């Protein structure tokens, strides 16, 4: 295993002072690794991701990205530090066209680089080219998700964080999105993904963390976790299946 790209340790934080949602959660992602974050509703998975992304305040603990301490760094500075984040909902600007969304997403790059990044993006997502001058509000859920991922990739991040990329998508779209993510990891991008659909997450992830009540509960490879009774019962259809 190579040097960790992201190390978040002992994070305590939340939206309102005095009401912590994270109670010491931590996570590690190596370069080029595909890591899934699972757990019951309200476990703090999204909050953990938002805290790393600089959106939810961290009261104690530390986030280190590629050897630099980036705890509570504003999101636009993290984009420069090669971290990209795709929120679960409202992750594109619906009043802007696809092209405008991508141009704004490439704003951290120089003009020349931005032009190239946009060209690459349209090449990788031909669907977006067809609708480039259409406001994003006219897109389907799957197309929006594509746009959100395309936008996040513009700055060629080393780490891509996705909050439930499969939410609201048809099974066909989910497998499409996941195979694209798998291809990205193959190209060397590390992915950290919150996912309710544990079966789907285990099918692509190298490793997974199980979070409950803002703390780490378990972690390991999908094979290792799938063999545990607790996981089978709660998430893999042993009992009532989630999602």
């Amino acid at each position, binding site marked *: 295993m190579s040097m960790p790209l992201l190390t978040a340790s002992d994070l305590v934080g939340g939206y309102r002072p005095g009401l912590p949602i994270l109670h010491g959660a931590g996570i590690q992602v190596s370069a080029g690794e595909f890591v899934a974050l699972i757990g019951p509703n309200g476990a703090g998975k999204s909050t953990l991701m938002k805290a790393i992304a600089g959106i939810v305040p961290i009261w104690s603990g530390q986030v280190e990205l590629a050897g630099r301490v980036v705890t509570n760094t504003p*999101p636009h500075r993290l984009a420069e530090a090669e971290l990209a984040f795709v929120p679960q909902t409202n992750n594109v*600007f619906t009043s802007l066209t696809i092209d405008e969304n991508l141009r704004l997403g490439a704003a*951290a790059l120089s003009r020349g680089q931005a032009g190239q990044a946009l060209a690459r993006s349209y090449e990788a997502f031909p669907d977006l080219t067809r609708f480039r001058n259409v406001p994003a509000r006219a897109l389907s859920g799957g197309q929006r998700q594509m746009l959100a991922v395309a936008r996040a990739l513009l700055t060629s991040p080393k780490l891509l964080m996705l909050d439930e990329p499969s939410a609201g998508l048809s099974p066909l779209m989910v497998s499409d999105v996941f195979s694209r993510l798998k291809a990205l990891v193959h190209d060397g991008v590390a992915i950290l993904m919150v996912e309710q659909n544990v079966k789907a997450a285990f099918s692509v992830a190298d490793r997974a963390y199980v979070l409950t009540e803002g703390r780490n509960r378990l972690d390991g490879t999908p094979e290792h976790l799938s063999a545990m009774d607790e996981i089978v019962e709660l998430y893999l259809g042993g009992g009532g299946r989630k999602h």
Partner: protein
Amino acid sequence: MLFQVLADGILTGSIIALGAIGLTLTMSVLRFPNFAHAELITFGAYIALAVLGLTGAFMGPLAPLSFGLPLILATVVAMAATAVLALLIDRLVYRKLRARSKKMTVVFGSFGVSLLVRMSILLVFGGAATYYSTALQRAIRVGGLFRVMPDQVFTLGLTIIIVVGLHLFLKFTRLGLAMRAYAENPQLVGIYGYDSERVLRWTWIIGAALAALAGVLYGLTVQIRPEIGFHLLLPLFAAAIMGGVGNVHGAVLGGLIVGLAESLSIYLIPPGYKMAVPFLLLLLILYLRPTGLFGSAKGAVR
């Protein structure tokens, strides 16, 4: 007679439009109606007057306009000074209120700021009416139908240039895109990698600079008094809301409609009630189409 009334209405309307553009931008991006916007207009008018007092009218007017290079210079200084004032107000008052209180608190804060600025102007410059220039202008006769002042034609032309410029700015520059984006979802702007503080800063700068410009142009057509901005407040809000909050083109059209309605009202009501016209329009629009004449998306910058 009718043509004269129409021409006057369009020209008053273009000044209202200039002020309303700034108001609609700050209202949609910063998400609160800034009642102190009117005082930015007054402030701009007075700073230009002060600069003019310092430099003197060292050159004659640029015929056929009533003003010359000194006023243009003074206007540029006024726009910059008003932008600084707006940034200062945001830093000292609005930012703190935004961070820890409800939206209504910010609105009331803006009433307070409005009073403070207006009274400070009164204190420094006095309440007497003044003028940029007492030179007489010769009106241009248009086809024997109506007469316009060269300054008014200049104002209309400048408004058109600014609207086209802003349209291109919002459509093609990164900052323009970021401003439209911020109006929809402030948090996502940072996630997209754009500094949202920069968006806030430039929204104030652009809104305040346009307010100052409107102040000077208004000062050219009427007397300059500490209440000129305050008297424009209702027409500005009527125009901005009629056009749909955040809609730059809508604000211009709204401004023209308010200006025309005001001047056409002389056929129906005594001129003394002219000031009630924007109020009636505002009531009407809020009752019939609260999202504005062209508005479907609420609060988006277009």
